[in-house]
């Protein structure tokens, strides 16, 4: 069982899921076949759930096995033709990339972080998310004002020096501003149609993935692999190519292609502290 969960709690806290108003237990306790991706709070949550099913301490987890499970899960969802949020696909693509790095022996001239280092970062993020989740459960189980503990029911005004006779919070102020500006602008709002990958979508994905991998990789291919519709694949490749040109112009990306129709490799354009000794 999880060896990190022995914090010496006096009272056994109620499992956090039971306290959450919208706790949809499907997907958490049921077999993976019944897929409700909406029940997960994003790809990292899903990964944590899968890791938990390995029933070992997160530090001892097999990242390769985890990556395979995740990808398998995504494949199942795709087979059922359910729509997946882009975040899940990005994670699948990244895990496929990570898996390939872990399985292929490190090349002598290879730059950047090793697969093991990337895997360690993933473990760190899973542990941190789990820690925050447990913290949330402990927080919500405390004696809370208005539920377990109560304030004076009949407060009286105190003779305190009050230079301000009006009250308003920063939130009130900002909400009032946003609401009125929005009201004024509302006639012009257009909702963008989904179905194709916009330049902005593709750009966001690239930035996130390139930032995570930190080295030469054919990211768009990894990503396209996880899209169900061929039309979407084309749209993504086109958009990500155009977005990558934009990113290159801004110096945020470098690309490399070994020959016509070969995969296009990408990496971050800004030399990062870890990337010493650029070979070019």
């Amino acid at each position, binding site marked *: 069982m999880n060896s990190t969960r022995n914090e010496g709690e006096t009272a056994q806290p109620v499992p956090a899921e039971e306290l959450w108003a919208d706790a949809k237990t499907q997907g958490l306790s049921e077999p993976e076949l019944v897929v409700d991706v909406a029940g997960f709070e994003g790809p990292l949550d899903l990964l944590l759930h899968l890791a938990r099913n390995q029933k070992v301490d997160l530090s001892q987890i097999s990242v390769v096995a985890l990556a395979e499970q995740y990808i398998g899960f995504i494949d199942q969802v795709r087979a059922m033709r359910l729509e997946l949020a882009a975040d899940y696909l990005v994670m699948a693509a990244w895990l496929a990339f990570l898996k390939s790095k872990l399985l292929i022996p490190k090349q002598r001239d290879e730059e950047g972080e090793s697969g093991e280092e990337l895997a360690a970062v993933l473990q760190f993020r899973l542990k941190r998310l789990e820690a925050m989740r447990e913290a949330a459960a402990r927080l919500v189980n405390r004696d809370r004002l208005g539920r377990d503990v*109560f304030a004076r029911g*009949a407060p009286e*005004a105190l003779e305190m020096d009050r230079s*301000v006779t009006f*009250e*308003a919070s920063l939130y009130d102020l900002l909400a009032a501003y946003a*609401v*009125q500006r*929005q009201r004024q602008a509302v006639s012009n709002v257009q909702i963008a149609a989904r179905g194709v990958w916009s330049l902005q979508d593709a750009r966001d994905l690239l930035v996130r993935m390139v930032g995570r991998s930190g080295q030469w990789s054919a990211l768009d291919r990894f990503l396209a692999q996880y899209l169900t519709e061929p039309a979407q694949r084309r749209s993504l490749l086109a958009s990500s190519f155009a977005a990558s040109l934009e990113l290159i112009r801004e110096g945020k990306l470098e690309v490399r292609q070994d020959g016509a129709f070969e995969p296009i490799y990408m990496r971050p354009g800004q030399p990062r502290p870890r990337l010493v000794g650029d070979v070019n």
Partner: protein
Amino acid sequence: MNQANIDNDLFAEQRIGQAIRIAEAILFASAEPVTGKMLAERLPDDVALDAVMERLVAAYANRGVNVVRVDDAWALRTAPDLGFLLRRDAPQQKKLSRAALEVLSTIAYHQPVTRAEIEDVRGVETSKGTLDLLLESGWVRMRGRRRTPGRPVTYGTTQGFLDHFGLAELRDLPGMEELKGAGLLSPRMPSNFAVPVPPVDGDLLGPDEDELTDIDLEELGLLTPRVTED
């Protein structure tokens, strides 16, 4: 007295002690005086309400707060000699109206800003009363005059505004991206939509702004006209 009796007494004392704690908490948390009937319902069955209240009244007799009887009910009241700590008939703090908040936030983001410009942003007329109220609150001030026809007065916020809203400087007001990030603005605003960045130094006059002079203030009725000495 034998040991059994002593044990019995100790137990009874614990029971009444707990009953006193319960009565105390109920009186404290209640918005209104609590009837003896209501209290009795919540106390352990084998404890007499009269005994509990007698002990509670005695416990608070010399404290800053007393337990007082109001008809058939009980309440906690500030000790009469400490009444000076409370403010009677004093005006309560008032919540700013929605309109006032809108004008205030417009001034904060768009300063230096004239009344016509505020109306332009809000799309509705701003009543003079709202501006007066904000000036009175000490959060808004007249900064100067715009160097345009009519020389309209420009408004801005004060140091008191920053203090009240916990801002170190005007530029700590969140920008468009952050308003979107906090969920206050829709993520899909029209491309021509912008949130102005307030000036670094709220006290510096803008390029098209003149200082307010004493004459201006007189005109605005904010300064009583000087009596010219003969």
